[in-house]
């Protein structure tokens, strides 16, 4: 399939965001994925989230690995630079991009195959560096692009379309990221637009590596009875652990909330996350209790969603490195080159 440009039709009724852009200014090329693919819903949510946040598209870089999921950066924000890299290696390219220009807003799209098999190492190290980016894993339990093999995210006992039963324990990106010391871990479902948009916005604004695992059914290879990544299974076992409200810095928190029922997390730009506990006692800022909770729910076969863990205080990569506030690519050559005098002086010690 080749690339098809989406016709842009002016609808006078469309609303502008704070910087005067319409939602379609955040759209990209026409998707070539299968009709009904969960990934397309995530793309739509990404468009919505960036539009709502009024982020200029040119300030954004969108990167991906290889897979159906990794194709999607072509389908949103054509005004942003994109980088469809190699299989499993999106995080390293994002690391370099962030190293070279820390002012960019970075969104990485990956798949469960891309991040949990071939790219498991790079996934872990993006978390470890707390790279300032939103890292989305569009999780369908299979390798969509290579026609439906089980991925490492497939649950043990789940059934493939042709009947094979998966014998291997799954790798859960959420508990893996939390145990690695991640600063932001969330899970959502491509079918829950409202939650997804909120979590995307929270992840974009989070000053560090925001891991967002999104169950995103593959309608062609993994949406049948016996699959634990189908629309039906996910809806039946859908279990939000907390409900998040994203409050932009300009807005006051107006919603009334019961003392002790919510946690407010302030992000560095002044925006706030309001975490309402739906399950009693769920505390997304307490790592050990989160791990215990996730384990309980896993045993019950529940798909726990929501902002599951957050620590907005963990320093991101540049803070640890003490990198200059000026982006590397914007430093003047004169600031970088020590000059002939320094060279002569240095060499005096080499004799």
């Amino acid at each position, binding site marked *: 399939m080749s690339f098809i440009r989406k016709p842009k039709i002016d609808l006078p009724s469309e609303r502008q965001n704070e910087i005067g852009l319409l939602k379609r200014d955040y759209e990209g090329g026409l998707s070539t994925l299968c009709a009904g693919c969960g990934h397309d819903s995530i793309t739509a949510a990404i468009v919505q989230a960036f539009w709502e946040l009024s982020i200029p598209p040119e300030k954004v870089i969108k990167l991906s690995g290889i897979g159906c999921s990794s194709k999607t950066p072509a389908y949103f924000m054509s005004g*942003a*630079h994109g980088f469809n890299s190699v299989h499993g290696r999106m995080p390293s390219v994002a690391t370099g991009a962030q190293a070279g220009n820390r002012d960019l807003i970075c969104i990485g799209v990956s798949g469960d195959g891309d991040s949990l098999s071939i790219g498991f190492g790079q996934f872990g190290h993006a978390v470890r560096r707390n790279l300032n980016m939103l890292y989305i894993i569009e999780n369908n339990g299979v390798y969509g692009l290579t026609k439906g093999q089980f991925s490492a995210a497939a649950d043990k006992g789940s059934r493939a379309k042709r009947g094979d039963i998966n014998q291997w324990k799954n790798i859960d990106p959420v508990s893996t990221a939390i145990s690695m010391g991640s600063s932001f871990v969330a899970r959502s479902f491509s079918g829950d637009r409202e939650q997804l948009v909120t979590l995307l916005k929270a992840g974009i604004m989070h000053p560090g590596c925001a891991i967002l695992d999104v169950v995103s059914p593959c309608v062609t290879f993994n949406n049948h009875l016996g699959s634990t990544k189908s629309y039906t299974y996910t809806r039946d076992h859908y279990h939000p652990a907390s409900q998040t409200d994203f409050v932009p810095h300009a807005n006051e928190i107006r919603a009334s909330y019961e003392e002790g029922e919510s946690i407010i997390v302030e992000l560095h730009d002044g925006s706030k996350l309001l975490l309402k506990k739906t399950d009693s006692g769920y505390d997304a800022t307490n790592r050990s209790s989160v791990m215990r909770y996730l384990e309980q729910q896993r045993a019950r076969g529940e798909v726990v969603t929501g902002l599951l863990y957050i620590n907005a205080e963990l320093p991101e990569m540049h803070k640890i490195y003490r990198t200059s506030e000026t982006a590397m690519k914007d430093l003047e050559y004169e600031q970088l080159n020590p*000059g002939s005098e320094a060279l002569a002086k240095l060499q005096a010690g080499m*004799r």
Partner: protein
Amino acid sequence: MSEIRVNDFVLKIGTVNGTGSASANSLLLKALFRMGIPVTGKNLFPSNIQGLPTWYGIRASKDGYMSRSLRVDILVAMNAQTYQKDMQNLCSGGFLVYDSTWPRERQLNRDDITVLGVPLAKMCNENFSDARIRILMKNIAYVGVLAALLSIDTKVLRTLIEETFASKPKLIESNLKAINLGYNYAMETFTCPLPIRAETMGDNSKHIMIDGNSAAGLGCVYAGATVGAWYPITPSTGMMDAFKAYCKTYRIDPETGQKNYVIVQAEDELAAAGIVLGANWVGARAFTPTSGPGISLMSEFIGFAYYTEIPSVFFNVQRVGPSTGMPTRTQQCDIMMCAYASHGDTQHPMLLPANPYECFEMAVQAFDLSDHLQTPIFVLSDLDIGMNDWMIPELSWDDSFRPNRGKVLRSEDVEKLEKFYRYLDTDGDGIAARTLPGENPKGAYFVRGSGHNKHGMYTESSSEYKDLVDRLLVKWETAKTLVPKPVIKSSAKETRLGIIAYGSSDGAVLEALDMLATKGIHFDYMRVRAFPFCDEVTEFVESHETVFVVEQNRDAQMRSLLILETNTDARKLVPVLHYNGMPIPSQCVVEGVCEHLQVEAVA
């Protein structure tokens, strides 16, 4: 034996890994250097941290020969384990210095050498109380012994020690004491100086001593590189160490403590390559130093960078392969791999420095070429260049130099265009303009390793695919005009014989040319400095009847590359190969050439 030989000797010190002999050896090297004698120092060390034998060889050559010499005139045997082997390696008439604190087995004697015992451990135990200092000073004491034996200027030694330990006066005292212990013992016990000796000679003040890794790291600083990504691997590690050290000196804001550089120690070489691509994509200059195994891992990304046209600089400090091979030994064995690294039709410019001077120079050139050509550039040095101590002309810098960032359209340039197309070559040099993320939505484009056309859009069209890869060939032709030209040294006499070499084989060839000239055999010599080959390279091959290709690998990789890329008759390219992991000596060149020409090799 008694014939006096001045400023023409090889000194070898055998020690145990991890006993701190490095500062003693560097003291010796620098003393000879300051006496104005051309000198080089080469390490021979095991792939091990502590406890195994290691050697350091110093060659002093009044004629300026820099290659490894097979001859050893004086051997300081500090390692009892290798004593016997060390003795065997001495040339006839040579001198063996050993620590006579403990008795030496009689059967280890050789009639044609002179054995000089010095109770180094005993002296140091009597004069120093701290255990660690005793071990270190034993090394410094042999420097004192050699100063007496070789007539090394003790004033120079004193100054060097005072400079080295300027901030630690206590160490100055103990070092000088150790020097004197060795010096006085030798003066009292032996006939000093030996017939083999040093003498103050020319002026080395316009030269420096440096290793290639330091020079390359420094080059990256001067080139304006801001992002370095790497995964540790011998023998390239020293390059990132150097880059970091120089950045700490020159790139930290004294007021804020903020860094004008980012060094990422990646999780592996795959990631290091990805980081380099990402940083260059957004407009920073980024590089990675590695060695052969690292390039293997980076290969997928290298092809990606070639096809998507992302500048990127890869330093390959070559070591003995395949696989882990002999990681602390040298070879020129990755020529073929780097020239065509990755899958699909790929080819990459390579720069081939012959010494640390060129490591510095070519590091700067590599970034300019990479930005200009928007393609990966390889700089191939090796362990011999990277980790050994070379005497080179002092480095200079032109302050009016500004980097060539190539065709980069900034926000205001994009604004003037009706539409921006990423892969559209508008002037026929095969290079299209790029934009940088974060600047202008009009300049936004999508980097993809899948098929793309000149407008930067996805394609599966046969003709559009072909158009793009054919343009990359046009770029390749442009590259030929930009890479460093070969250095050609024409014979004084008319000859139909040529020699081609590159990189660290240069020294051996230069010395061999003189040796062969005394036999009446004359050659034109071309040192290839880059790939793709420019016209001069082809012309040289064409204009000689027989061309010897000297290199340090088993499979004659440069010869293969010449055959492939110049369409020359393979039969006229005669391989001269050295690949045992030690730097190539001149004798190898002489023997290889003579064997082919059926002339008796010069002794």
